[in-house]
């Protein structure tokens, strides 16, 4: 199935990516090719088959409800590009 340029632009926004004009052209062509290949899944009769999200279907792994030490704040913040001593800093979302 061929994707349109407009679809690819929309997907790029959803994926929070930005593509240059030439990336957009290449991506449209390559995604169309790949999607065309995976379209063969439609040949398979899988009616009534339970989807398999995980290879080992372990269910209900419980942990005891107990307070345990977690990652110290300064370690959690240590790799942040912008932070103060309490949290991560981001551009203003409201009322810029």
């Amino acid at each position, binding site marked *: 199935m061929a994707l349109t340029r407009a679809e*690819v632009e929309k997907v790029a926004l959803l994926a929070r*990516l930005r593509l240059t004009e030439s990336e957009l052209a290449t991506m449209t062509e390559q995604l169309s090719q790949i999607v065309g290949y*995976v379209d063969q*899944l439609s040949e398979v009769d899988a009616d009534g088959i*339970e989807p398999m999200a995980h290879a080992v279907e372990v269910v209900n792994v419980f942990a005891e409800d107990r307070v345990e030490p977690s990652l110290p704040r300064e370690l959690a913040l240590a*790799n942040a590009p912008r932070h103060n001593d309490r949290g991560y800093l981001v551009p203003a979302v409201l009322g810029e």
Partner: protein
Amino acid sequence: MSIVHGSAAELAKLLAAGEISSVELTRQYLDRIDRCDGEIGAFIRVDADRALEQAAAADRRRRAGEDLGPLAGLPVAVKDVLCDRDTVTTCASPMLAQFRPPYDATVVAKLKAAGAVLMGRTNMDEFAMGGSTENSAVKTTRNPWDATRTPGGSSGGSAAAVAASMAPAAIGTDTGGSIRQPAALCGVVGLKPTYGRVSRFGLVAFASSLDQVGPIGRTTQDAALVLEAIAGHEPRDATSINRPAPRYGLTVNQPLEGLKLGVVKEHFAAGLDSEVESAVRQAIETYRSLGAEIREISLPHSKYGVAAYYVIAPCEASSNLARYEGVHYGYSTDQTAMFAELNAERKRLTDAGDLQAADDLDPPLVRMYRRTRSEGFGPEVKRRIMLGTYALSAGYYDAYYLKALKVRRLIRRDFDEAFRQVDLIIGPVTAGPAFKLGEMVDDPLAMYLVDLYTVSANLAGIPAISLPCGLTQAGLPIGLQLQAPPLEEERLLRGARMFEAATQWSEKRPANHTNGRE
């Protein structure tokens, strides 16, 4: 022959017997890396100082008579995708070029606790996405058997390091073949364990329902030794299987009695290189001569494996990689430039009277995300994020993601059915030997099809191993794949060892890296 060409299992014995010190061994490997890695490019970083410290510590503990595990003092190289609190962990991506993990991955912690000497971090396709290591943003890795060819990927650095005798063993990860394919192309042994056998805690996620950590070594004994050290239940990975890990190293040499091997008829279809086919058929004959019963079996849905995989893996990747947004860690775009760009665009549109368009411009936060991700990810990572986002988007979810999950179950059922008739499945790892660097970089679909024989094991969650079974006329390694039912790594290793012990393929070394430079 220099000691660096030995297998991990042999070296572990020499270390245990006190015939060589870990410091001495580590120095030899560091020298070897100095001489060879300029050409091969297997390592992103070599941690020489730490390696020598760990080696000295292992030697001290041994002299003090402590009870040491089989990996104590043994050099191991680690793919740059497992968190190590002592060193940056980059995933070969600009996104994580400066990332210093706040904790150790379970596998890294286990290696440290076992007294292994961590030599350094090996090259890989960015975020483990690729089959040639060419998607690394750091460097090109070359195949030690032919420097114009790829080592495979994504664990290409780990496989090349072992093949070029720069480490006796290495850690890789396998989401769709990323341990087995480079092992095959580099003529070494690589094992992908059962999903859940090895903890994924601290493994930088690509596709969480498929990712699995495993060993690369010269021999099946090496793989057994390293797997033993890294396997086991670990509560911080909720998908880790709560079953004890056997001592694989103790049983690997025991042949399997009455072995029934399944040959998948769909594997020998068009597209399989004739030299690879003939080596694999020869291997099947070797097993027959060892007393194995050979049965033809069918995995009718295996031909849909690549299609299902290239829906499921990108979907999971698009979700997993959403975490890279320039806020919590990793690369972040220049905010001054970002605001300047926004103001300039807004002014241009306002001046032109297009107030609606000015209003529709990406606001600062979205703009920061998009710039950060576009600057921090390479082309293949973007392609997979796009593919996954598309397949999960409204209107396509049922046709692609849900359908792929159903096909995944059919693939698993095929295996379950097959393993009612046979103990192990035997076949090729790849359709051909190592390909030329650059050959497929502009053709992502062709690159994806390389995974034909490997992805099904990940989709089904079963263990599989690649071991050397021949050389082409041109002198390139050929890999043999064995697959086993879930949690049957012990059977897998013992079965693989039977072939290895009956042949000499695992003793072959790339010519230009055994003699010329010594």
